[in-house]
Structures are given as C-alpha cells and as structure tokens.
C-alpha cells in the first residue's frame, strides 16, 4: 500500500486541482447560489459535508460493491447524504433552506461528488477518502464564497445582509450594480478567477 501524501490530498483540491476553476465542475450551482454570502456559505458547508461523508461511506463499502451496479450504489449513498442535509436544513435553518431550495437537492447531480467517488474513494482507504472529499468540497466552497462576496458587495452593497457601502455613497449618486445579481455576471467573475489563477500558476497554461 502506497503512503498517502496528506498535504497533497488536502491542499491539491483547494488550489492546484480546484474542482471549479481547474476541473470546471459544479458550475451550475456556483452561478445560482452566489447572490448572497449567507446562502453561499450554507451551500459550501452542505457540499463539504456531502462530498466528505459520501466519499467516506463509499470507501468503507468499496470492496463489497458489485462492479456492475457501482454507479447506482454511489448515487444511492450520495442521495442519502443530500436528503439528510436537506432535512437538517429544513429543521434548523428554514429560511436559508427556502432560498437554496432546489439547489441543495441538486447536489446529487454535482459532478464533484460523483467525480471524487469514482476517481478516489473507490481506490483508497476511508480516512484519506474522507479528507479528499472534504478538501474538494472546500475547494468548491472557497470559490463560491469568493464569487458571492463580490456579487453581494457590488450587487446589494451588503455582506451577510449588513450594509457595507455607506448611505452617503448612494446620496452622492452611487448605484448598486443590477447586472451582478444576474447569473451571467457570476460566470464572468468565475472567468476572472480562472484567469488570475492561471496567471499565477504558469503550469496550468496550455501550450
């Protein structure tokens, strides 16, 4: 059994192999739930929990899974985790769960979750799989929070619902940018993040 490079497992998905900016997975939800920082944080947390736990569980039972139905088994495990998260949100964070509504349910279809299970959890021990899942969720969540930060600040002038841009600016003629609220601007912001990342990490650039 090869030794696991813990640092690599944890940090790679956050920067060098970030699921959104490098692998370009999970774009749909990152455009939809980043209007407000609060929603983005809850979504990030939900995805971290789902990726982590489902990778862990699948890795636990990986040797017993019949190969022919492995995708179905993975789906069942992921769906279980998603429904659990959804139910807990409905019970303890009702208002947030209403704004996130379908997007929590759609974590099932988030390619990051299935991708990590197929690529990592099926071939590794439970604990490294758990960390890999958590780290990938965190990589996704980090981008979500960065995008949401700019969208809420520029689009509504608030952060976590608190007013950041002072009233004096508005009386002086400053206006919230309505375009930032709309999903296309989230894609443009994402593009900028990819651009910056590729500018810094030269090895990501194609020849």
């Amino acid at each position: 059994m090869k030794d696991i490079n813990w640092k690599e497992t944890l940090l790679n998905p956050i920067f060098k192999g970030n699921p959104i900016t490098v692998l370009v997975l999970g774009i749909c939800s990152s455009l939809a739930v980043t209007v407000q920082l609060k929603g983005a944080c809850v979504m990030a947390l939900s995805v971290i929990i789902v990726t982590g736990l489902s990778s862990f569980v699948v890795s636990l039972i990986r040797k017993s899974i019949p190969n022919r139905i492995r995708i179905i088994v993975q789906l069942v495990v992921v769906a279980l985790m998603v429904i659990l998260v959804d139910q807990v949100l409905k019970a303890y964070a009702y208002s947030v769960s209403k704004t996130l509504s379908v997007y929590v349910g759609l974590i099932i279809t988030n390619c990051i979750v299935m991708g990590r299970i197929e690529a990592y959890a099926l071939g590794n021990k439970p604990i490294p799989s758990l960390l890999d899942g958590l780290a990938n969720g965190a990589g996704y969540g980090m981008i979500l929070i960065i995008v949401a930060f700019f969208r809420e600040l520029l689009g509504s002038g608030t952060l976590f619902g608190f007013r950041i841009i002072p009233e004096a600016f508005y009386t002086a003629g400053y206006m919230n940018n309505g375009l930032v609220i709309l999903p296309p601007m989230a894609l443009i912001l994402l593009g900028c993040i990819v651009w910056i990342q590729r500018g810094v990490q030269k090895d990501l650039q194609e020849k």
Partner: protein
Amino acid sequence: MNTNSNTYTVIYSIVLVVVVAAILAFTSQALKDKQNENVKLETITKVISAATQADPDYVIAEDTDILEEYQNLISDAIFVDANGEKAGQMNIGKEDKKAIEVASTSDLKKQNDIIKKIEAGNADAASELKLPVYVFNIKGQKVTVIPCYGAGLWGPVWGYLAFAEDGRTFDGAIFDHKSETPGLGAKITETPFYSQFKGRSITDEGYFGVIKGGAKDTEHEVDAISGASITSGAVGTTVRTWVKYYLPYLNKLAAESAAAQEPVAEEIVEPTTEEE
C-alpha cells in the same frame, strides 16, 4: 466471494436500499416536529405581515420573536362556516405562546378541496366548511385576515388578505407560492405586486380582479404582473373564490361597522386578568 454474481448483486441492492430507507425514515420522524414548527412560524409571519400593512409605520425587527409579536397583535382567531357563523376557535396563545394554533397550508388545501366540491355542484359539502379568520388589533384598528388558496401555474398559490373594519377594503395582502416561475410568477411574493391591494376593495358581490394589461377599475382591480398572466390570473381567481365563501362573514363585519357609525374605540377582548 464473487461480487459479480447475479444473486449477490440483487441481494446487495435490496439490503442497501432497505438500510438507506430506514435511515431516511428515522431522520424524517426525528426532525418532523421541528420542521412543522418552522412551517407554522412561517404561516404566522405571513399572517402578521398581511395584517400589519394596515400600519404604514410598522417595521418588524430581524430578531423579533414572531410568536410574541402574534400574541401582542392578535385579538381573536376563529373558524367560520359558510353562513359566516362562528364554527370553532383557534388557540391564540395568550397564556402560552407554544399553544398558538394557525391553519397551515395543508389545512387550507383541505378547505379548498371542499370549495371545489361545492363549485362542482355538491351543495351538501358546504356544511363541512370551516374557514379560518384572524382578527388583529393594529394600533386600535380592527384588522381581519382571511387566507386564500388555489391553483397557480405550476403548483398551489396562497395568500392572506387583510380587511379593514368595513369588511370590504383591503388593509393589506400577501401571497406565496410553491413553484411559480422565478422572476415571473414568483413576483407575486414581492412588494410591488401585493402593495397594490391596500386601499382597494372588493365589491358588495365579492368581485376583485387581477387584470392583465392594467386595472381599469382602480377601486376593485389591480394590475397583473407582465409576463405572468396565468399566475396573476390564478391569484385573482383564488381571491374571488375564497372571498365568495367568506362573504357572509364579511357582510356581518360591514353591518357591525355600519351600526357603530360613531367611531367609538374598538372593543377589544383582552383576557389578561388571571382570574382562573
């Protein structure tokens, strides 16, 4: 063990599904009370926000205890039958805020099913009708809130209509929906739409319209949302249908307020004394 044999695969999937179903059923049961509590809180919030539109200065702080706010503002909550007579009492929680009772959307759905039966010609069903009414005291003004519930474009739409003392004029209204199109039909939950209701009134026959292309009779109609004529129309139909069954009760309100022409301070039922 051969994990690729058919028997193994079938048994494996059955066991997996049973285990997962058991976990889900357990979680659902364990969290049910808490979730229902949230739904109830939301209903109360909606009812309060319909009633408090009567007071333009009213703002609800972010951290307000909704149950306490309800306790402070409510003066009575009853059920009425199709003749406008009282047919039941809801706990308004003056002693214990945990005991507050409201009609949830699933209760409204049941009433709506009865209404549908009556509309279909089954007049006997009218005796089953038990329609909720919330009577608020907003700064000395009597505000009566009635719910309405009906079919939207994709799923149910429902709302709460606040009437002034005359039983005709809207003091406010608020709507919600299950799955209307975001950005179009879903706009019925937003201020520009529902704020149109305040100050307008239903006719004596119980007519009120949500009109595509702009209200012509600005006393008894409001503008539909452009691009969402079906949802808007559904709100109009829902309001009309429910108002029709509340009309006997609203007429009684109208008669009461006409009788008390002299604007005497409203008699408020305030059982704050702890005699029992």
